[in-house]
């Protein structure tokens, strides 16, 4: 178990798509309406469950998106994440109770652990494209 995953994270909730640490319009930090306790998650197990439940087909192995939304570096609150997985909108299949809260916590921890993507300016091949 990765200890980082065991951290309890206190989150501010602003709807269902608020990103951690990402400034909102106007550059002001969001004011939390209430706090949320996120269950401890195991990153390694989360990675395995992310694959086992077939999430990778649409979101890729590291949650970078594809046919489905990008999940890495763009985490919604855990509660919103859990709600969406169980009862999503659009073409995503509804997992309902197929995935437990503990598994979701592990997957959530895994997605949060994915390092940020590099700045495109640091990738010479991308900058050579005119």
């Amino acid at each position, binding site marked *: 178990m990765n200890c980082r995953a065991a951290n309890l994270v206190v989150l501010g909730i602003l709807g269902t798509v608020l990103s951690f640490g990402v400034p909102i319009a106007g550059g002001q930090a969001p004011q939390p309406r209430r706090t949320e306790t996120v269950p401890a998650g195991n990153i390694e197990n989360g990675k395995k469950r992310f694959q086992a439940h077939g999430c990778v*087909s649409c979101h890729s*192995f590291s949650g970078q998106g594809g046919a489905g939304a990008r999940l890495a570096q763009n985490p919604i609150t855990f509660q919103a994440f859990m709600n969406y997985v169980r009862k999503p909108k659009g073409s995503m*299949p509804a997992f309902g109770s197929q995935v437990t809260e503990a598994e979701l916590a592990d997957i959530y921890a895994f997605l949060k652990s994915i390092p940020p993507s*590099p700045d495109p300016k640091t990738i010479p091949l991308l900058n050579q494209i005119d």
Partner: protein
Amino acid sequence: MNTMSNPEQNNSEQNNSEQSSVGRRKFLQLAASAAAMAGSSTAMSAQQETPARQAEITVNEPGALPPVRAGSDFMLDVMKSLGFEYVAANPGSSYRSLHESTINYGMNRNPELLTCLHEEAAVAMAHGYFKIEGKPMAVYAYSTVGLQHAAMAVYSAYCDRVPVILFVGNDTDAMKRVSRTDIVHTAQDPVAIVRDFTKWDDAPASHGHFAESAVRAYKIATTPPTLPVVLSVDKYLQELPLPEGANLRIPKLSPTLPPQGDYAAVKEIARMLVNAEFPVLAVERAARTPAGLKYLVELAELLQAAVVDTIQRMNFPSRHPLNQNDGRGPDLSVISEADVILALEHPLLQSVVNAGGEEGSPSRSRLTPGAKVISISSLDLFTRSNYQDFGRYQEVDMALAADAEATLPVLIEEVKRLITSDRRRVIEARGAKLAEASRRRMERNRVRATYGWDDSPISTARIAVELWAQIKNKDWSLVSRSDAMNGWPHRFWKFEKYYHHIGQSGSVAIGYSAPASVGAALANRKYGRISINLQHDGDLMYLPGVLWTAAHHRIPMLTIMHNNRAYNTEVMQVQQIAGQHHRDIGRCRIGTAIEDPNIDYAKLAQSMGWFAEGPITDPKDLGPAIRRALAVVEKGQPALIDAVTQPV
């Protein structure tokens, strides 16, 4: 129903049927004699028992046998007159005489026989070849078992409006069927299996009839809408020796000029486009030739009109600021802004101007009230019933049954004539807005490409970018489906020339891309272009034998595998249904995954004569591998890199 009459009757070149029969018997006797002479003395003795045969042997010593001019020789003359460069085929006895004439009488040049390991590969190669070369390739096949194998690829060519000309051998006369094979490989009406998705077919009953039908077939196939055609060619007619002095004639091919749209209607369309506040050009197969690409660019730039391109053809430059398709499919939001939409060769227009409508739910129009929709399409001149590729019915305000490419020059001149200085200011402002949107889209894509940049398996964006860096200064051609690698090439590569991509399969069928890419690469070979095939793993395994065909015929091409070890679209489809049924979504790789064991595509390619590397899982290894493979390709050989990729 196609039936064969007796070729010895009603045939100008065979006014003496007895003579023809004797000619055939003599040919067989000569062949038997030659075999006997080359064999044992016992065989020779047996032959000599009959005085008549003895006399023939005396006259025709081995090496001095007079050449027999077979019906298939004349058929080949007809094919040569039509300018076929290649004929793709998997060998079959019902066209053995055409085969032999091709390699010996025609000396295997124009057409050259391409050895294919499956009839579906043969037709798909012809499909890809046309997309580059702009002229049909011939295909030989068995009328029954061969045509059944070929049928899927014929359907793709049909959906993609590609002319392929098939010559299928058939043992028409029951009295001449000898073996079990002859019997079970024969049909009364062999072309019936593909008639719903071909434009024309015939079963010529004489050599003269063959000549007329072959020239007619070519003419019909290459007249827009261009589509596949089939000739059922009787085996006996192929093998029948032509009598001395046979007076056979090959008709001149008189190509049909594609129809231009009605001039008054074209003038009205020009007026509507020039006066529009936000005109949109919706294109599917608008550019039949490089000229079509040039015209479309000229029209779009004159109007500074947004172009919604489904990239079924190389219609419009990928990075042009007016292009609304950045590889992830056309951005249809511009349809909602449009007051005039001009659709060019677009059978699926209904799905462009409407949203939703899946699974019986009502579709919702994207059109603003009062928006006008105009269609110019040659498909209005030819429609079949059974297969539904013509799409759902779309109401339009004006429909021209005409070839779009042939109509564009007149339309362009009318547009030029009508643009006033006032309208020019409006047009330029519109163009500036679209250019700014295009620039922002490009920057977003540059950021998106960083997602999972260093991931293993490798992201498809990384593959597209690594490859582009190494080919952008070469003369390259994407010979696989134009939406390959999740459309990333279209986001970054500069598709500008007509041969820069070959569009899509038409049928959206798996199994098309690998053989079509080999056919397109063959067409590119004589121009010295680097052919790039971005190859889905599932698609390759339909017809992997085409790798051998590419190596055997020294067709240079670089194949990079999009090896996600699954039919991933189907994984997602089954997952969606499992969700609807409230059942286990995690089990949906059963029946869709291509793993356990993983296929080693490098070894597969190596076994068929390719240079190959992989599997490559670390993105850092990709660039050097591409460099090594390109060096091989530039020496004239095919090379494959097995890149293990993200699922999507």
